[in-house]
């Protein structure tokens, strides 16, 4: 079975980082999973374009080895509170990452 994000992380969350950006925190389950998956191509900018419509040029990656975590931030496609707002604080956006397959 191919592992998914939820198989290799102990905690995943998402939140606004100001009104124009959203940030995802992936806390991997231990240093082995961090090493094996934090650079995985399946988590690349194209994923955020496909799932959230993000501009791939505005997806940023910040690995934090000391915490076995990866922070991914991207510009919101629509600023907070706009006409098509569905998740004002982006607190539910992480859920769509959970089943991403890491082959």
């Amino acid at each position, binding site marked *: 079975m191919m592992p998914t994000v939820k198989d290799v992380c102990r905690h995943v969350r998402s939140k606004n980082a100001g009104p124009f950006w959203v940030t995802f925190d992936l*806390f991997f389950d231990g240093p082995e999973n961090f090493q094996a998956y934090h650079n995985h191509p399946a988590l690349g900018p194209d994923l955020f374009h496909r799932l959230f419509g993000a501009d791939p040029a505005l997806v940023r990656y910040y690995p934090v080895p000391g915490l076995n975590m990866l*922070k991914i931030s991207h*510009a919101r496609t629509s600023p*907070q509170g706009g006409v098509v707002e569905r998740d004002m604080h982006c607190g539910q956006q992480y859920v769509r990452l959970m089943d991403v397959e890491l082959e």
Partner: protein
Amino acid sequence: MLDGPIKILVPTGSLGAGASEAEVRYGIAQGAHAIATDAGSTDSGAAYLALGISKNNRGSVKRDLTILMQAARAAGIPLIIGSSGQAGGDRNLDWTRDIVLEVAGEQGWAPKIALLYCEQEKSVLKRYNADGKVRPLPPLGPLDDATIDACDHIVAVMGAEPYIAALEAGADIILGGRTTDTAVLASYALWKGVAAGPAWHAAKIAECGGQCAVNRLEGAGVLISIGQDGFEVEPLALSNRCDPHSVSAHMLYENSNPFLLTEPGGILDVTEALYRQVSDRSVKVTGSVWQPQPYTVKLEGAGSRKFQTVMLIGIQDPQVLSQVDLFHDRMLAALYDRVHKTIGAAAGDFHISLRMYGWNAVSGDRPPPGTPAPREIGVLFVATADSQEMASQIAKACNPYFFHFPIVLDGELPSYGFAFTPADIDRGPVYEFLLNHVVELDDPMELVRTVWIDMSEGEKA
């Protein structure tokens, strides 16, 4: 030279969230030099700046102020509050000022209060922009006058300097307009000459109060002790503790970059920071670096350009629930058609959205084939138009179709479950943040107006 660390009592993550008397008492007993907290952020959306209102009820803010003012007065230490009234606009600040004056009256106290205003005139910002002193932050582009004009209120987010000036002038209470969370908490230590790296980093860690502790639900506040070589942090609730993981993880929170934090006048760099346990309940952090930069402040501007009217139905009809996406697409097409036929061009640049709660309302994406049918769904209809009247007319035009739209075309017309009468609710303006820009300043006080209230003397500018 300092005798020892500067201790800042951070009673809660945000004024009005619920300070604890016992926790504040503990922090004071530990020798706190000041009480500091922010009272808001942009996090709850643009409406609070656009309208000049708090998201908190008055009673919860008054309750916290009562506890904090009593403690600050008894201990003879300053009370420092930033981003007053949620958004830190002039109206938000005045709302908070009035509560402080009321509490002071009740306590028989006549404190010296500094009010730091940072709301900006549009003409002033246009001048800065014309002078090339305004820069966009991604994803926005260069600022134009039309965008400035579209804002109802604009604030220039303050750094620590206005607070330091107010402390220097002997303020008992400082009520700041919009300020970076960190500047509010760092200001006292910076005033006392503590190294900037530890002061800013401690402030970032303490900005959400007890959020940096192991158990985030236990207790509201933290105590930060800031020295020249680093800082220590401990929760104010004795039953809770900080550990290196809980503290370092907080640097990630609501922050797009976990290592660099841009502040007015510099960048906090925590790339090399070390976190270690120094007692059962406290963590010491060293290695935080402050890199001075040209002084810039961020602009936050909120306004509204569109209006919305909403309707809500509940659906349990199994035939609809077995093909929600098809139902959504057909109904949406029918609603647009209905508006074109009954209102026509007068509807202007309108937008209709159907949010299928219980199916895909939060994401708007398509669930994979084979996803089981839900037991029921709520459908939120959102019409957006250039005026409230037009949004309302669009909703009224759509009402019969929204209420009766059939999925089986040859059957009897269904009636879905409205929850209210009238069915359509004018929701008001769509408030948005329209600015994501910084202004370069020669003087940190350039865009700040300080007003003093010495309650023993009355108000003077």
